[in-house]
């Protein structure tokens, strides 16, 4: 077992540090994207300033919101199933944390690879992508629990809509990623990063081969499916405020609402990390930049700059998510299901078939 974090020997303190690290990876990007995009970008899109009072340019607004929610009364509806109602937000957050666990941030910087037990750069064998797709589906259970236990019609309708939507869009999400897996020849997220570094574009290796270039159809479907998995507009029927008050969140307030809120935006950020690993080359910079600085892809420097590179790529992907969220109006419920089953799934199946043929041909 390695007891090095970023090449510093920390001994027994490794696991507490990793726990803190997972908390940081879930909470910090969530806070950053909420401030940058949900507060500021959407305000500028709508020709207003957004929060300006708390801190410089309203940068402390988030702390104010969290403080406000923590002070609120923890309300349970009179007829609610108290245990299930209380547990539901934890189930949703569990799914987010489990997802954040396997994202690689550098050659050795990561939490639990589920590959061969360590972040070994030479053997790429493991269940990385498959695990990620599996734990994504746990959040549906939490949403169904919230919808049922609230003892409210709006909540139940919202929960059912959410479950139908998440089941429908999980398939294109998985199928879109299969193209990348075929091309990289491994399920391991670390292996996918390395195969992108070592890839070549028509014999030119200076840029590596980010799979967004060859798998752009997969990337497109991945981003749409992520949008739907996060129940962000234009896929926000489960919490459609004009029809269902607030869907499965209707009866939640205070701390438990805050947990759902954090879960939603943290999952957006973690999907951003996952998307940058799968399609944008992960923690690596293009090989010609590595040549300039005279380092290779196993260099310890990547344990330090890898997280920053990942954060940059994640911010680009989450920017697209929020940009679309605030640009397009909501789909109708039946249009949503049709779009998943009749458009996205057939396209992603064709994408897999073509990728497979090309993989064998070249």
């Amino acid at each position, binding site marked *: 077992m390695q007891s090095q974090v970023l090449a510093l020997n920390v001994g027994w303190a490794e696991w507490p540090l990793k726990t803190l690290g997972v908390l940081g990876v879930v909470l910090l990007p969530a806070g950053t994207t909420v401030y940058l995009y949900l507060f500021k970008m959407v305000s500028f899109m709508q020709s207003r300033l957004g929060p300006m009072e708390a801190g410089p340019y309203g940068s402390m607004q988030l702390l104010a919101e969290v403080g406000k929610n923590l002070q609120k009364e923890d309300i349970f509806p009179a*007829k*609610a*199933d108290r245990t*299930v109602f209380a547990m539901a937000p934890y189930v949703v957050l569990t799914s987010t944390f489990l997802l954040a666990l396997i994202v690689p941030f550098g050659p050795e910087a990561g939490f639990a690879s*589920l590959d*061969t*037990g360590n972040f070994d750069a030479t053997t790429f*064998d*493991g*269940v990385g992508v*498959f*695990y990620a*797709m*599996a*734990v*994504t*589906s*746990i959040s*549906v*259970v939490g949403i*169904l*629990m919230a*919808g*049922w*236990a609230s*003892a409210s019609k709006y909540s*139940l309708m919202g*929960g*059912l809509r959410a*479950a*139908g939507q998440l*089941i429908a869009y*999980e398939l294109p999400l998985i199928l879109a990623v299969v193209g990348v897996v075929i091309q990289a020849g491994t*399920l391991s997220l670390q292996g996918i990063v390395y195969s992108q570094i070592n890839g070549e574009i028509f014999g030119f290796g200076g840029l590596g081969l980010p799979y967004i270039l060859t798998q752009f159809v997969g990337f497109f479907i991945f981003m749409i499916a992520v949008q739907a998995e996060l129940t962000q507009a234009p896929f926000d029927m489960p919490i459609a405020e004009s029809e269902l008050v607030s869907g499965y969140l209707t009866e939640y307030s205070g701390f438990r609402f805050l947990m759902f809120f954090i879960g939603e935006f943290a999952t957006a950020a973690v999907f951003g990390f996952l998307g940058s690993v799968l399609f944008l080359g992960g923690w690596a910079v293009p090989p010609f930049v590595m040549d300039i600085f005279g380092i290779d892809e196993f260099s310890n420097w990547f344990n330090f700059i890898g997280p920053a590179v990942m954060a940059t790529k994640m911010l680009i992907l989450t920017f697209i998510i929020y940009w679309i969220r605030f640009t397009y109006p909501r789909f109708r419920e039946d249009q949503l299901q049709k779009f998943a089953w009749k458009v996205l799934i057939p396209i992603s199946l064709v994408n897999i078939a073509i990728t497979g043929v090309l993989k064998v041909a070249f």
Partner: protein
Amino acid sequence: MLASVSLFAQATGNSWDLPANIAFGIISVIAIGAALRMVTTNNVVHSALYLLIVLASVAAVYILLGAEFAAATQVLVYIGAILVLLLFGVMLTRARLGGDEDLNYEQRWIGLGVSVLLFVVMTYSIWEQYGTKDEARLVGYEPQRTAEVADSIFSTYIVPFEAVSVLLLAALIGAVVVARRD
């Protein structure tokens, strides 16, 4: 508490991975408790949620055994698909808050008999196979690599794999045919 842990350590011997054994003990207590509650509770949704705990515990045991692929499959198939569909169906039809008295089924004694019989048979066969602590038998039981799983599915077990795929496809088409009214 500490005494019971050290007893447990003695019983399992030093040659085995002690932290894994403690984790296995905790997980199995959770799984058995949840399984008992699942069949005794009066509420359909609670029953499904206890089933979730049981299935998740089994996935955790797979991880302890080094079978990561099986664990991920367990989560994806049983929790992500089957359990969600079960909850979905229950909530669409009858999911009263509070309990249902008529959930106490008359045939539960037969069910109890069957499960005891199954328990005895499985315990006996596992004990016969591995119970003697003969470590020579366990040589070669290393954590499974995903690539090895894939290789054996698509070479040694290709015929059963394809047969199961066709069977599932037939079931899928059958479900569509049954569900269509026209």
